[in-house]
């Protein structure tokens, strides 16, 4: 892990020194040892502020629409983050020539919430490292091994995409795909309706899910519009339902499942599950996978004569 971190710094430094990019977006040390924070490195000597550890959770592609509009930027990206970048390029939000991708192989990142639920005392953590399949948590009282199953974020456990789909430089070895685990897609049922009702009832409308999402780049979100008013600002279950359901529909074939929305939600709404369900339908009916660099057009921008007509589709 330390070697990969060194390589990231080296590549960032080179790109900045040669003037290829004006800034490199990456992860820096967080305010506490179990977090990292996005950093924007614009001087070669600051490249040493970049870090790579199990807490590098943020999908930094969210910054590209703002930063790569008028010039070339470097970005340190995990395979899932790269799928977001592919989507942004395909949707013409970012030009390929405006991003310099330092791509990483990745075996998953941690969910600090799960660690807290375990025996680890957050206050005492001094560092996080991978040790084979285990997370090595170094604390003031000594090292604790946390099994990956307990430490990894949900989507990392089932991720098949462990090496960069596209990149300008690739750092670190590709990591073998995890076992063939599948995320359960619940069917349509009354229970499912009840489940989402309970989830949306919790929503406080802080929009962290939308703001952290690289695919949510609309300059004015439909739910911030006053005329027409698609959904009211109040945090009631119905209005939250309208917001989350519409957002999910907007993300079909575009959400790459990084799970940032779920990670940042202060009330634990698993918004990514909705997009995951819709993506499963897109895969089944149109053989489309979001973030696949081979696909020429966005799902909703492509039409083939033999496309399944959803209106006549029966389960």
């Amino acid at each position, binding site marked *: 892990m330390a070697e990969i971190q060194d390589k990231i710094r080296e590549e960032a430094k080179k790109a900045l020194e040669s003037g290829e990019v004006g800034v490199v977006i990456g992860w820096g040390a967080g305010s506490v040892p179990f977090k990292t924070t996005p950093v924007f490195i614009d001087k070669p000597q600051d490249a040493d502020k970049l870090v790579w550890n199990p807490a590098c959770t943020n999908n930094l592609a969210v910054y590209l629409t703002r930063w790569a509009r008028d010039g070339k930027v470097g970005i340190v990206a995990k395979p899932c983050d790269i799928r977001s970048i592919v989507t942004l390029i395909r949707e013409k939000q970012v030009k390929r020539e405006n991003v310099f991708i330092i791509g990483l192989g990745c075996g998953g990142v941690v969910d600090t919430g799960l660690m807290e639920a375990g025996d680890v005392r957050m206050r005492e953590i001094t560092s996080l490292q991978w040790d084979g399949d285990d997370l090595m948590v170094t604390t003031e009282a000594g090292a604790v091994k946390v099994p990956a199953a307990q430490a990894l974020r949900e989507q990392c456990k089932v991720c098949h995409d462990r090496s960069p789909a596209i990149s300008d430089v690739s750092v670190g070895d590709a990591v073998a795909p995890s076992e063939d685990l599948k995320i359960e897609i619940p069917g349509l049922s009354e229970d499912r309706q009840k489940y989402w009702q309970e989830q949306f009832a919790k929503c406080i409308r802080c929009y962290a899910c939308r*703001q952290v999402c690289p695919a949510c780049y609309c300059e004015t979100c439909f739910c911030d519009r006053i005329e027409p008013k698609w959904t009211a*600002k109040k945090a009631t279950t119905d209005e939250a339902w309208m917001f989350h359901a519409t957002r999910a529909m907007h993300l079909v074939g575009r959400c790459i499942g990084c799970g940032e929305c779920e990670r940042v939600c*202060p009330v634990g709404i698993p918004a990514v599950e909705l997009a995951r369900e819709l993506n499963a339908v897109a895969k089944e009916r149109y053989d489309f996978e979001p973030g696949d660099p081979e696909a020429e057009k966005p799902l909703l921008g492509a039409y083939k004569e033999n496309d399944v007509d959803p209106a006549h589709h029966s389960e």
Partner: protein
Amino acid sequence: MKDRVLLKDKTGDFLGFLAERFEIVAPVERADAPAEFKELAESDVPALDGSKPMMTPKDYLLPRHEVLVKIDMAGGETKVETPLPEEKPRVMLCAWLADAQAIQVLDRVFLDRKFVDPYYSCRRENLVLFAVIPAEMRWSWFSGSVDDVETWKSSVDGLMYDLGDRFYIESTSEKGAELIASAPLSEASETDTAAKNKLWDAFKNTGLQPFAGKALYENLAWDDPIWEEMAQKCIACGMCSFMCPSCSCFDIQDETCGHCVERYRCRDTCQFEDFTLMGHGHNPRATQLPRSRQRLLHKFKYQHEQFGVVGCTGCGRCVELCPVNIDIREALNRTCVEPMEQKAEA
């Protein structure tokens, strides 16, 4: 004022005693989400130990959605209704002390003598407030760094210290003393008192920062480079404000439905772009930089100047939850401590 203890296996009796006299408001656990303050129904089991994340008591006193006026014009007749909450004696249990102190900030906004907000006031008046000091402090707390927490004891009627198998109950007002004198509680032993004092010290010293004890309101600079740094990474969500126990900004919206009009109040935040957007299109805080600056200056400078209280009580929610790890403590250390040290060196 004699302090007493509540043995945890006698919690039911204590709650029964309170329920005869008050509406009990306490945090109730939810699946996959922080506990939320609500009026206890008989089937609710309150989360009294205060050790896990919880929503703020603000969500009870200043609901996320509150109808202010209902107008019905059916049949050519205009009926206007202002649905005020019922005024009744309430007791709030197990708010974090930082959250209880944050109610002082809300009071300054909503119970100002020039204008008393009737909706807030109905819930706040006659509220007996007991804060909790949990057995273990959360890693993100830094209350002792923003204020002298000893003075916060007068912001509540009593404190409940979690001593494992029992709560040590200390009254800090006459109302609190009266209540615990008649409640079904046991006498506190000297050991209990010693354990409680130890826990109080732990709370006081939790997360002490380099900026502790410094006059932040004097040192926060309008043109500090940190605002740019925060704005660069801020993704402009409203989580820090919505989860904050003292952030009180709201929006008022009108909704029409057939012959009805409903005017309601809901959360708003200085972190949203449209917060300062004027009707004619101008936005005085057009970029994230002034928005990032506003939140901190408001809490640590303006509110201090206006009310004489600090607008942040160190509950640590924004520290724990910020999606991009903007840490308010780090920002304060950078803006207020480092420049002073540099000055001292020069």
